[in-house]
């Protein structure tokens, strides 16, 4: 790797470096990224649908969804645009608890997350089981629309585009189907520790 003349970088906090994947830098704010206008979804219009292929298995209203078991998670998150944010606090419903409430076990190894604005992203079921939630609250407050509220997916160990904002459902698919960014050149899996940013990485 060629050294860049004159570049030393910021003083590094070595105690945190084990938590920041290669190519990432620490961010104190919470940047916003999206492909289109921010959808403003009214709670009364919010639904969440679990599907197997084209078939809806169960749909929850906001009230029904909020009656599911809530879990709190504190996690580091990593955006492909190179910022990482540590110790973010989320509250929501584990994907495991959603399946339990629908009385199903994962019928395929592949899941597509779908959003109100037409966005989608693929995540293997094994990356959701025990690791991921549908988050309703961030930092103790209801999730605001800029950050995907009322509800977003949270898959903290993958690049953050996998944590689909404005989520309205999860769909089991027979094959690993590319979502919005994956169709536009981003990596099918997106492991920050292996710098899987773009297809072919």
């Amino acid at each position, binding site marked *: 790797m060629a050294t860049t003349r*004159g*570049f*030393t*970088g910021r003083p590094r906090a070595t105690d945190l470096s084990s938590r920041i994947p290669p190519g990432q830098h620490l961010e104190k704010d919470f940047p916003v990224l999206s492909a289109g*206008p921010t959808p403003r979804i009214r709670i009364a219009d919010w639904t969440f649908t679990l599907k197997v292929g084209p078939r809806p298995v169960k749909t929850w209203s906001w009230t029904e969804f909020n009656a599911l078991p809530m879990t709190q998670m504190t996690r580091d998150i990593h955006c492909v645009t190179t910022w990482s944010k540590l110790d973010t606090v989320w509250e929501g419903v584990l994907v495991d608890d959603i399946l339990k409430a629908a009385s199903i076990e994962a019928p395929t190894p592949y899941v597509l997350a779908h959003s109100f604005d037409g966005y989608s992203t693929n995540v293997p079921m094994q990356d959701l089981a025990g690791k991921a939630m549908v988050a309703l609250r961030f930092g103790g407050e209801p999730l605001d629309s800029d950050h995907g509220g009322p509800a977003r997916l949270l898959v903290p160990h993958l690049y953050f585009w996998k944590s689909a904002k404005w989520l309205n459902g999860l769909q089991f698919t027979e094959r690993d189907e590319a979502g*919005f960014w994956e169709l536009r050149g981003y990596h099918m899996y997106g492991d920050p520790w292996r710098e899987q940013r773009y297809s072919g990485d």
Partner: protein
Amino acid sequence: MSEGSVRWQTATVIDIVVRTPRIKSFFLSLEHPFEFQAGQHVDIRLTAPDGYQAMRSYSIASAPDHGTSIELAVERLDDGEVSMFMHDVIVPGDEIEVRGPLGGHFIWSVTDGGPLLLLGGGSGVVPLVSMVRHLKAANLAGSTVPVLLLLSARTWDEALFRDELLEFNKEMSGFTFVLNLTREASARGQDFGRRIDAAMAADVVKRLPGPPVHVFVCGSNAFVNAAADSALAAGIPAETIRTERYGG
């Protein structure tokens, strides 16, 4: 974006141009020139002697047709590890690593047609200028697409690419440039002097020969939210609006 891996390559800084008090353009000569589309970006990577690397994304300002070099316009952020280095340290002749072109959503080609509405805030005008420069090149080849660019800047002096856009406004058929200055009055009658709102969006839409088929919005998160919401309130369907947010 093309299939397969996009490789890192070495680029040489061939020129640096001061654009505004806070923004400089960096002209990079590519070891391996690539084709790109207006609106795409590159990642740049800097490496310290101890192996530490910093990486950032910057939109390409040049027209796709430009050839072996690309222009990046970089705003100096007071706390910006990379932007401060680029502004204060880099000189022509230096080499940095570049990867691109990247981004397969915020892109426009003259063959995608129009009318096209471009809403840019501050340095968010960079990928939009690439689109306008692309249109300029297409104009010379005989194609015309109605395009309106609204650039929102704090002051006349901070309006990035202002003179070039004013010139284009005079000489390019079908291109309209509107300036919105939020902290001082503009000298031109057709400009605005307030935060973008639905009335402003509706007003600029009326200056196009028909409803915009594609809308691109780029700037800070606050600007993009205000501009995209204004476009929606002016009756533009959400699915025609693509956004890119700077900062963070």
